[in-house]
């Protein structure tokens, strides 16, 4: 685990301009003085945390500075780290697989965030843990989306349920659930087409996929993963809100953290909607999916 997060940290600090480095330079060894506020704010903005969350964080930090009176800027940074980690407030070891088998997972999100890739990574991850997994190619719309998932099936050694392009995505989802039951799988992961949350007809189509799954398994889907690209700015919040309302998202996967974007919008989503970040994507390879760890994440973005 620690090694993997170090990799993330390395990835995130590849630029000289990274948040941690700048905060360190800002705080290190300095006596705390009020001029540092503006600069701190600027650094938080550049991490995409957004107006609301930054106001919340700086207010909480001001309060902590007032009551605990840190002498050194370094201590202020420790306070900020504490406040941020507290916001994530992740339940310890949340279990992934529902006792009911097969568990049904649904990948959702706007276009191009990494749903199909994450479905493939999930399949490999769960298979490595000894579970029987099946993938469902319910993105029947985008050109070669089925072939893409098929290739991930090969990479992870997992069977893919598919129909011809242009087929009804709900029908593919239904087939996948059926196949998972018939073949006694532990887990079915259903990929869906990217859709912008402001397109009502596409969101309704997604609700139909859920209804069809529930025809076979009323408790399903057991996990609905909203995949968010770490480069996403403030729109991430609207995405999360609408998907949450439409299909009861259970957790966030934050992808592309191997770039220079900090994915700060994820912190706002957690704070404002309560949706936990459960996994992060740090590359395009099968092993580039890590369980989210708040402490390591905050350390990675703020620097140790």
């Amino acid at each position, binding site marked *: 685990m620690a090694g993997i997060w170090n990799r993330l940290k390395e990835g995130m600090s590849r630029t000289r301009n990274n948040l941690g480095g700048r905060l360190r330079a800002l705080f290190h060894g300095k006596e705390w003085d009020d001029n540092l506020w503006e600069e701190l704010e600027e650094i938080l903005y550049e991490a*995409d945390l957004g*107006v609301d969350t930054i106001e919340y964080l700086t207010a909480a930090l001001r309060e902590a500075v007032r009551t605990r009176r840190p002498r050194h800027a370094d201590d202020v940074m420790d306070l900020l780290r504490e406040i941020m980690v507290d916001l994530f407030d992740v339940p310890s070891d949340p279990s992934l697989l529902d006792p009911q088998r097969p568990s049904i997972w649904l990948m959702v999100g706007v276009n*191009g965030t*990494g749903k199909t890739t994450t479905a493939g990574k999930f399949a490999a991850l769960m298979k490595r843990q000894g579970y029987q997994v099946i993938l469902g190619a319910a993105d029947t719309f985008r050109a070669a989306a089925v*072939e893409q998932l098929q290739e991930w099936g090969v990479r992870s050694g997992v069977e893919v349920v598919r129909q011809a392009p242009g087929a009804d995505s709900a029908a593919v989802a239904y087939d996948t659930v059926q196949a998972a039951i018939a073949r006694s799988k532990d887990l079915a992961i259903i990929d869906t087409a990217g859709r912008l949350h402001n397109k009502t007809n596409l969101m309704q189509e997604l609700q139909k996929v859920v209804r069809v799954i529930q025809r076979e398994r009323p408790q399903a889907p057991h996990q609905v993963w909203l995949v968010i690209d770490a*480069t996403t*700015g403030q729109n991430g919040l609207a995405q999360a809100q609408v998907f949450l309302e439409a299909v009861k998202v259970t957790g966030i996967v934050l992808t592309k953290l191997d770039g220079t974007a900090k994915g*700060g919008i994820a912190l706002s989503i957690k704070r404002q909607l309560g949706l936990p970040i459960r996994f992060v994507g740090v590359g395009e390879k099968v092993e580039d999916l890590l369980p989210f760890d708040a402490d390591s994440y905050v350390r990675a973005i703020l620097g140790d």
Partner: protein
Amino acid sequence: MFDNLTEKLQATFKRMRSQGRLTADDVREGLRDVRFALLEADVNFKVVKEFLSQVEEEAVGQDVLDSLTPAQGVVRIVRDHLTTLMGGQVERIKMASNPPTVIYLVGLQGSGKTTTTAKLAKMLKQQGRQPLMVAADIYRPAAVDQLQALGQQIDVPVVFSPGLSPVQLAQEGWQKSRQLAKDVVLVDTAGRLHVDETLMTELVEMHEALPAHETLLVVDAMTGQDAVRVASAFKEKLPLTGVVLTKLDGDARGGAALSIRQVTGLPIKLVGSGEKVDALEPFQPDRMASRILGMGDVLTLIEKA
């Protein structure tokens, strides 16, 4: 038209006016509303700062102070400045005087390069050109299949040969354009991070093997603060000529457009407004300015209806 920012500013000014006449300081204070609006629209923090210091002088001018509708006055000034900053006019794709014209599409993973390649091919075809597309993403699963499927939809040939490197594929694209008498070569490249040295070098080598007339950076309209860093890094390595802003059919305000334009000087040439192959439009600076300020994209909406 629900005009959020103007309303907010009106409320702010009204609060201030209750203490008498609006002063220059009041307006300066009111610009905080504009600042938050721009930040919420994902305009880069530094760009916001610079921008506001530029409009401040005009915004606190007598005209605004004496006006009966100071909020509208301030918003109009802000919007006009935004429009000018974003280029003022529509920028076209440049065609080589000596064909084939070579156009590269580059950018981060998932930004919309492959889709835009096909959209652009279709647009050029409708303008009477004879395009051909090169599938130079040999890494992402089924990226070649994706471009081939799109090629079939729009009836444009796709160049690909298993085993060839992206550099060789670019050259192959040029060869094929001669053989098939095509006058535009569109090269779809793999998504890559601007910090990935190996893959960035690969793009440079492709440009050496087959020089570009246009190299378009494809940027997702939902991009946040990182847009500036990404665009600057791509521009440092490659002869970028413009930007395509995709997924504008979403509800992101698209402040990245302003940030990129301001920091790199690159014109935004086209916008993607849907997943289908005909959803590609010229960039309209005035509409984008209204959109960034949260004033809706009314004209576009009307055209769609």
